[in-house]
């Protein structure tokens, strides 16, 4: 189970009225390498991975939900006061037609979220290597988002999120080393 702290992991500030940015940020909400896919991937792998690395998946999977909240807050702030006309101009007309201002799990191109974005292979090495790749892809997404945004406050939050992907990748690489270790040379026959 989880305890909930009613605050964000890192403060989210938005300084410019730029709803179009929300259209791009939604990639990290419901996209293939987004925070939802990350959280579900790691929390689901916990059950069958060797116990030495299960705790890591639990911790990082939980943190991904904290990141999801930050992205959701950014998207919400950028769109909540937009008129239908502004939504249309921002390229969010199709979104508005289906969802009004509600957030929805889809990528920047509008493709809905799907469980096929991630795997649970059951092979510990394959699963951890997927996790490392997922972190690098999320880091890249944050880079492209920062490149497109000129809102310094949004970029501050995105830079924090990008850095967390770097740290997560490091931890998963350590997990791979732990899985490769010869434990106390005790072999079972």
């Amino acid at each position, binding site marked *: 189970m989880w305890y909930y702290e009613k605050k964000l992991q890192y403060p989210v500030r938005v300084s410019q009225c730029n709803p179009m940015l929300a259209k791009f940020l939604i990639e990290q909400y419901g996209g293939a390498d987004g925070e939802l896919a990350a959280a579900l991937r790691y929390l689901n792998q916990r059950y069958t991975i*060797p*116990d*030495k690395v299960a705790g890591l998946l639990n911790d990082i999977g939980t943190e991904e939900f904290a990141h999801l909240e930050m992205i959701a807050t950014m998207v919400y702030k950028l769109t909540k006061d937009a008129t239908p006309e502004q939504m249309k101009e921002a390229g969010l007309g199709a979104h508005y037609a289906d969802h009004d201002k509600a957030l929805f799990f889809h990528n920047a191109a509008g493709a809905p979220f799907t469980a096929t974005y991630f795997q649970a292979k059951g*092979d*510990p*090495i394959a699963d951890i290597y997927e996790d490392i790749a997922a972190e690098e892809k999320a880091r890249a997404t944050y880079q492209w988002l920062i490149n497109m945004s000129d809102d310094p406050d949004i970029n501050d939050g995105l830079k924090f999120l990008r850095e967390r992907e770097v740290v997560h990748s490091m931890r998963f690489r350590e997990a*791979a080393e732990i*899985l*490769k270790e*010869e*434990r106390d040379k*005790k*072999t*079972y*026959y």
Partner: protein
Amino acid sequence: MFTQFKYWEPYISPFDPCPPMRIKSYSTPPQLYIPFQPKGLPQFKPMEALYRGTLWPALFSPYPDPKKRGDQDE
């Protein structure tokens, strides 16, 4: 030298519905332990290389576990 299979003992609950598999195993094939393949590694004879799928014994990964110890708890 590294081993190509690792074994671990998952938690067994007193309330598990099925008889427990006490030991689980997973594959750790050789490419995990070779950062960059060095030149001049020993090679299989051509016919054996064709059969095994690699020219180099260092890259050969047996499967299933030759110790016949998968998830079966016998």
